[in-house]
């Protein structure tokens, strides 16, 4: 499922350690910053010893956090954000030490590290990692480029093709080039974010590339060409998954390179939708649990990270009211009923005996990352050109 993102902001981010300190800016702009920090300050006053976590929706739900609170006799307070930029903004607007842990999109770990917001930790005492799918036990975004582990995956899902089975067959959906079929002209909906869309395009032109964001200028030119070719097929750009889901229900969009929108649609009673990751590969998003550098409760924060690696909590976390996703701990299935397993593809894959469909999808997907060889502005300009062509 594509995570919901929106651009609504209160006030601009205030963080900057390179020039003015956060404290300086906050002091100078106290009135403005107060709106961004008020919630945290009030909660802090309420529970001085609480563990404070900055996270995507879902982690705060009672079913997910209750056991941890009971075990450790501690109150956990959450500040919810929607989108990586909002996460950085919330973090930047608060005093150092406000948060003890952060749930971050995996590729944003390097942005947090640039702000010295998170620190490395040992995973030696996390036995549940042994039950993780191999691709989640150790992958580059957790390490932020210097070998140490900064985050442990807690939740993930895919940006493959979601499609209406009345108009597209499973075989057709297994190939990115099917998006160019005449029957899809003006019937493709695209998620309005350059990273997943261009990552998928990168895989479409360089099938199986394990590092779709680490591509040469020539490969990037091919990505642009592929996108511009796709443009006549596109009828709408959705700022989150919801407008695209609505468009699919309304029959205005037949296919979307936006991931597993079918999960929501099936839950709403629409059986004529499905999703897959094409044979060339697709992008995968993942959230990771990190520990804040300025936390005064690092041991407790690490206990929470450890707690989040468990299959029981993940089975609830990826099936929250907020949205549905997948969990990296493969023992998660022990806590689900047959319907849940089927809905989230944790069922045997008839085409690959011995493994579940979700494992096939994991094998075929690459983690979402940041442009490595070019500045992100170059990628954004290409995406904007794709939109305005």
């Amino acid at each position, binding site marked *: 499922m594509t995570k919901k993102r929106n651009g609504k902001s209160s006030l601009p981010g205030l963080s*900057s350690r390179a020039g003015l300190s956060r404290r300086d800016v906050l002091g100078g702009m106290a009135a403005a910053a107060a709106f961004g920090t008020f919630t945290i300050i009030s909660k802090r006053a309420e529970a001085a010893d609480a563990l404070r976590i900055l996270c995507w929706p879902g982690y705060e739900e009672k079913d997910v956090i209750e056991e941890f609170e009971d075990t450790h006799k501690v109150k956990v307070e959450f500040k919810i954000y929607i989108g990586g930029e909002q996460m950085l903004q919330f973090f930047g607007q608060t005093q150092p030490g406000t948060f003890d842990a952060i749930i971050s999109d995996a590729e944003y770990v390097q942005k947090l590290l640039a702000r010295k917001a998170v620190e490395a930790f040992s995973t030696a005492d996390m036995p549940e990692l042994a039950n993780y799918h191999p691709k989640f036990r150790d992958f580059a975004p957790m390490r932020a480029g210097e070998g140490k582990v900064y985050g442990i995956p807690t939740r993930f899902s895919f940006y493959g093709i979601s499609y209406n089975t009345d108009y597209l067959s499973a075989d057709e959906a297994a190939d990115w080039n099917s998006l160019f079929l005449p029957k899809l002209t003006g019937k493709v909906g695209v998620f309005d974010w350059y990273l997943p869309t261009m990552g998928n395009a990168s895989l479409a032109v360089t099938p199986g590339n394990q590092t779709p964001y680490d591509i040469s200028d020539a490969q990037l030119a091919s990505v642009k060409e592929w996108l511009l070719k796709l443009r006549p097929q596109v009828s709408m750009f959705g700022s989150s998954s919801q407008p695209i889901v609505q468009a699919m229900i309304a029959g205005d969009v037949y296919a979307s390179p936006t991931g597993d929108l079918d999960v929501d649609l099936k839950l709403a009673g629409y059986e004529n939708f499905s999703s897959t990751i094409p044979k060339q590969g697709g992008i995968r998003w993942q959230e990771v649990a990190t520990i804040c550098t300025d936390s005064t409760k690092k041991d407790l924060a690490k206990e929470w990270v450890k707690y989040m690696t468990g299959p029981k909590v993940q089975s609830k976390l990826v099936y929250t009211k907020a949205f549905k996703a997948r969990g990296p701990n493969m023992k998660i299935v022990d806590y689900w009923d047959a319907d849940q397993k089927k809905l989230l593809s944790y069922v045997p894959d008839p085409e690959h005996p011995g493994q579940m469909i979700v494992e096939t999808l994991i094998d075929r997907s690459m983690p979402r990352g940041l442009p490595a060889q070019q500045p992100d502005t170059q990628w954004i300009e290409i995406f904007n050109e794709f939109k305005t062509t």
Partner: protein
Amino acid sequence: MSDGTALNGVVEGRARRLRTPNDSPLKWLCLAPVAVWFVLLFGLPLAFLVWIGFWRIEDFQQVPDFSLDNYREIAGNLFVKSRYGLAMLQSFWVAATTALVAVAFAYGIALAIAFAVPAKRQRLALLFAVAPFWSSYVLRLYSWQTILSKNGVVNSVLKAAGIDVVRLDVIYTQIATRIGLVHYLTPILVVILYVTVANIDRTLIEAARELGATRWQAFRRVILPLSKVGLITAGSFAVIIALGDALSGNLLGGGTGRSLIGKYPLFASMLMTDYSSSTNLPRTSALATILILMMILVLVTGAIFAGRAQRRISG
């Protein structure tokens, strides 16, 4: 000096001091909340926004600076690559045409309330006219999506009526964007225009009628000229709101809705995407500052025209 003269002097002095209510020192007390509100909630955030537009990004972080790089980058991408200029044109085109339709529509409603509804019922009628404003804007947009889409209400009714040859195909075009915006703007504009129309001196209309003017002539020669200031104010207001709105363009216009100009996004929509997709708040702030300048341009133009119209009425 006699007592009488002294008393007269005191009275004259007090009269001089209290020539108008504005001479009261209490006015500063009354104006203080407005000034504080303006400075804290408008002036400071705006100044901060403009300031950040000159910062730069270094290692994913904002660094305070006074650099024009963001503006240079945007200027260099006006008609190539990101094509911000085309988005600006699209925004102006959609906002201007939306304002025209919304003002005309709201003016009709305001006239109807002011002249066709009995005085006792006018407040109630106004209440009904602004009622849509109480519901969520996003919900209203999703409702329009349900109405306008391929399998939506309109097309389903047409199909059920056997009129298959006619099909409404406006979803994900800027026509749909305008529909959402007009729905959003109408209640606000009705209030502005009702106040304008209700304040027209009825004796002028009656005089025109008694002098032989037809209803149409009375409207064209009396009501319309006297509504001009309100119409210009409402129009400017509508353009400014439409320029700043991204939701209708995203949900009904599909992000890059088709129009006479082409399939380009609205500038506000590009701004939102820029904010949510890159860790580059300085450039987003620069884009937002440009949007504000566009709005100020509309505001100043509107004020000039409104001023001229007011002078003509007064003269």
